[in-house]
Each structure stands twice: as structure tokens, then as C-alpha cells.
């Protein structure tokens, strides 16, 4: 379940979930703000995490994307990392990244994933050890998907 074998649960939480990239993106979120264009809000009623994703598509490329909202460190870091991962990509590429990301964080099989293809997003891989927090990581992505589809709201329910 972890990149190092036989970590205690506490160590998984402290070292794998709340690792440096996550803490950095939580402390200094990238692309915080608002873009005039497509936008959608994601809201998790169970915990109160809320994120609004806005973006602009020019010549088939997401050339501007930002997020606003309040929520836990996982949801903020995921939103921040997401904006970096999809900026400069086409909507189709963004959706493909989302599918792979979703598969990564919901994989509770214990099999080691190949993290190389994920870049900085790999920092969120630790969330799969805490099923109750998976929705925190996927919320901004559901909002992204909704925005790309022209919807204005998304939920992880």
C-alpha cells in the first residue's frame, strides 16, 4: 500500500499523505483565482469542502485555469496540482489525466502503481490508503469535468 513496505499507519499518514508536495501546494496554492470562462463548483456536503474551478479554452487548449474555495489540505493541494497538470492540455487530454488520476487514488488493491507518468500528481497517491479522504482528492477534478461539460455544479456523491 505504501512506497516503503511495512510502514505503520501513522507513518503512512504523516509521510505518505501529508508529504512535502501536498503541504507546499496547501500552503502556497498555484493558480488561485478566477478566470472568465467555463466554471463549475464542486461541493462535498459531508465535510464542507468547496471548490470552484474556472477555465478558458483557446484554439482547443486549456490556456488558463484557476480555482477558488475552502477545504482541507488534500482538496486544496489536489486543486492546485490539477491546475498545473491540465494547463496547456486539450480538454480530451485533461479528461484522460483525470481518469488515470481517479484510478490511482481509488486503487485499494495494494498493488504498487507506476507513478512516473503522474509527475507531481503522484504526491496524492498516499490518499488511497485512506478511503474516507479520497473524495477530498477527487472533488476538484469532478468540478473540472463539470466545467468542461458546460455544467455548473459537481459533487462526489
Amino acid at each position, binding site marked *: 500500500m505504501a512506497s516503503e513496505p511495512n510502514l*505503520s*499507519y*501513522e507513518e*503512512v*499518514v*504523516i509521510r505518505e*499523505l*501529508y508529504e512535502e508536495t501536498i*503541504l507546499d501546494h*496547501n500552503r502556497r496554492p498555484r493558480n488561485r483565482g478566477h478566470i472568465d470562462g467555463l466554471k463549475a463548483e464542486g461541493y462535498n456536503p*459531508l*465535510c*464542507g*469542502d*468547496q471548490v470552484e474551478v474556472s477555465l478558458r479554452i483557446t484554439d482547443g487548449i486549456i490556456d488558463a485555469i484557476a480555482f477558488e474555495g*475552502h*477545504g*482541507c*489540505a*488534500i482538496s486544496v493541494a489536489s486543486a492546485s496540482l490539477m491546475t498545473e497538470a491540465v494547463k496547456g492540455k486539450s480538454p480530451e487530454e485533461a479528461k484522460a489525466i483525470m481518469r488515470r488520476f481517479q484510478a490511482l487514488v481509488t486503487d485499494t488493491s495494494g498493488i504498487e502503481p507506476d507513478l512516473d507518468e503522474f509527475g507531481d500528481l503522484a504526491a496524492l497517491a498516499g490518499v488511497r490508503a*485512506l478511503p474516507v*479522504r479520497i473524495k*477530498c482528492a477527487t472533488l476538484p477534478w469532478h468540478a473540472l469535468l463539470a466545467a468542461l461539460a458546460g455544467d455548473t455544479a459537481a459533487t462526489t456523491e
Partner: protein
Amino acid sequence: MRSFDLDAIRKEFPILSEEVHGKPLAYLDNAATSQKPAAVLDRLDHYYKHENANIHRGVHHLSQIASKAYDDARKSVQTFLGAAEDAEVIFTKGCTEGINLVANGLFLSPGDRILISTMEHHSNIVPWQIAAQKAGATVEPIPISDIGEIDLEAYRALLAQGNVKLVAIVHISNGLGTINPVKEMAALAHAHGAMILVDGAQAGPHRRIDVQDIDADFYTLSCHKIYAPTGVGALYGKRALLEQMPPYQGGGDMIWQVSFAGTTYAPIPRKFEAGTPNIAGVIGFDAAIRFLSDFGLKSSGSSSDEENRLGKGLDLAFDVLEERERSLTAYATERLSEVPGLTLIGTAPNKAGVLAFVLDYAHPHDIGTILDSEGVAVRTGHHCCQPLMKRFGLGATTRASLAMYTAEWEIDNLIRGLQRVRAIFG
């Protein structure tokens, strides 16, 4: 001579020796549900092994035994609540169902007003909204102060505007710990011709309740918070009021006679207990009440005459528990104040062992996850009090809540966990 033997109490609760992620369990989520003593667990076991049958006085032996146990439980709850008669105690599946039962039974007209407070749990807001919407009535909030107390001046003013049918108010807030002046609020409500329902979900485990002293028209209990099984609640209502109300659920056992030409209903309490109830759960609650009473009698080294024994034991128990809780809450409050960047939410002078707080540098979710990794169980989120969160400009808080078996070391573990949170996020 009163004594508080924490170790002896903790030994009564088997789950307290559990380990969580390899750490000792520090269970600080008692406002969500309480743990159960062996006396309750053994009673459930004995019931299903030797007494189980459906109730309502079937002719066979086991049904007689089960029926008597269920009826005895009702009498115990009568004593627990200080009700005038046991028929005024209705068993429900929870506190929420009790409130819905009353909301469903209210005769509301357009323009009628229902007052609730900003600190209410959703179970004491939504049923009234549903009922009000059907009838063209309104639900209005009584404001609260920055330290989490009811604004009594505003309450008086709202009542004075007239047309208030019912006031629904929480006794002890699950979001703040505030203990509300429900007796005073009941008197004011009645002076304006309004009824009052008191939500006693958190009060049950923390304070001795006397519904006649409060003069509550309705009072709801959440039994699983009082060291009893889940799936049981109790609703107290004054006889005259319950008799006026239409049934909540129709079915077996709440009827007198059924025919296609018309059906007549059973008298209270059975009018409001359709179908087979959570018999074992109710009997389990009786065992919890007796457990508390026995604890009270033992703590004071007294014995009481049989007739008043249960009530006397409960009086003594809550004397001891209240004193213990005050001191432990003060300890927890003091230790929490050591944590940099921590703000307590709910600092009323009169509050119970419910400690909600926020940290400048970490979200409750993250706090809760890190605390969990250290074996500390707290609750994070809006605690089913979204209007309360909004009042304080918050999305969520972290909440630790105490019970009779809570130990100082559990508070210490909480603080150590919070220092860990600070090291990571601060």
C-alpha cells in the same frame, strides 16, 4: 462521601481497551455516540438467549416476560425523565424520530410561527421546516451571542410579535456545549401561549433531567448517547398534548379496532408505537439507566428504599458525574489553550463536556486524520449544524466530547496529536 473511581468505571466498558492503528483508543466522540458497559451488553445477550419474543402480552410465557421487560423499561425512562406517568413516554428509533413525530402532529395554520435557535442540530430544524412549508407557517431563528448563548432579549422580542405556536430548543448544544436556560425559555414560551419542545439528545448523558421542573411540553432523548444501544430514542409529551395529536405511523399495535368502515386508535403510549419496536434496544436502555443508578448508589455508599431506588441512584450518579465533568472539561479547556493558533468555539460559562475548536493553520479534516493516526477519535465537520457554522463564519470545526469514562490521558493524547498537527502544518 462521594468518590470517583475512573479505573473501575473504565473496566466496565470493554471497547476502551481496543487499539486503533496500534495505539490505545482515546475515544473523544461521545457526542456522536457513547460506548456501552458490560451490564448493557450482558443484558442484550441474556434477553436474546432467554427472553426474546414479541411483546404486547401474547399468551405464551416468553411474550409475557418480554412484555414485562419492555413495560419496566418505560417506567425506568419515566423516572429518568421525571415524567408524571409512564404513558407519557413514547419509544422511538431516535431523538430525530421523536422530533419528527411532534412536527408531524402539530396543527399549524398559515401565519403560525415556530421559533428555533441558530445553534440547533438539523434534526431540530428540518422537521419544522417541512411541517411549516405544508401549512404556510414560518420557522424563525433565535439569534445567539459570540460566546454561543441564546440571546434572551431577542427571544422575548420574537415571542412578543405573537402567533408563535411552538419553540424548539436544544438543551445542550452538540456544536458548542452550551447548556441553555430551557426552564426559563419554557416559562416565556408558555406566557405567550406557545408550546416548547426541548431536544435533549446531548443532555441525556450529561445532566439529570426533570421534564416537569422544566415544564417541557415535549422532550426528546437519544438513548444511544446514554450508554445504550443504537436505534432507540424516547419522546416525552404531556398527556393532554399527545392525546390531541394524530398518529405518526399507522400499523399494528397502535390501534383499538380496525375495520374498513373506520379505525380507532389505542390510547397513549401505544398510539405512537406502531409495529414491533426495537425491543432489545429499549431493554438495553433500561439496563443503562440501572447501570447509572447503581453507579450513583455505589459512589455515595448509600442504599435507598426500594421504592425510590432508581431515581435516588440517578440523582446521586449525576451529582458525581456533573462534578467530574466540570473538572475534566476545565482540564481539557486549559490544555487546549496551550495549543498555538487554537480558538475554542462555544465558550459559554454554563457548558457541558463538548469542546469544539478550530486551528489557524489546519482544516478539521486534516486534524481529524492526524489525530486518528494517533488513536484519538474526534468528530470533524459541521456536526449537522450548518446554520451554527455559518453564524461563526466557519465551514467546519473539530470536536472532542467527553463521557463518564473519559480519562485525563485521553485529553493529553489529544493535545499531543494537536502539537503534531502544528508541527506539520503550522
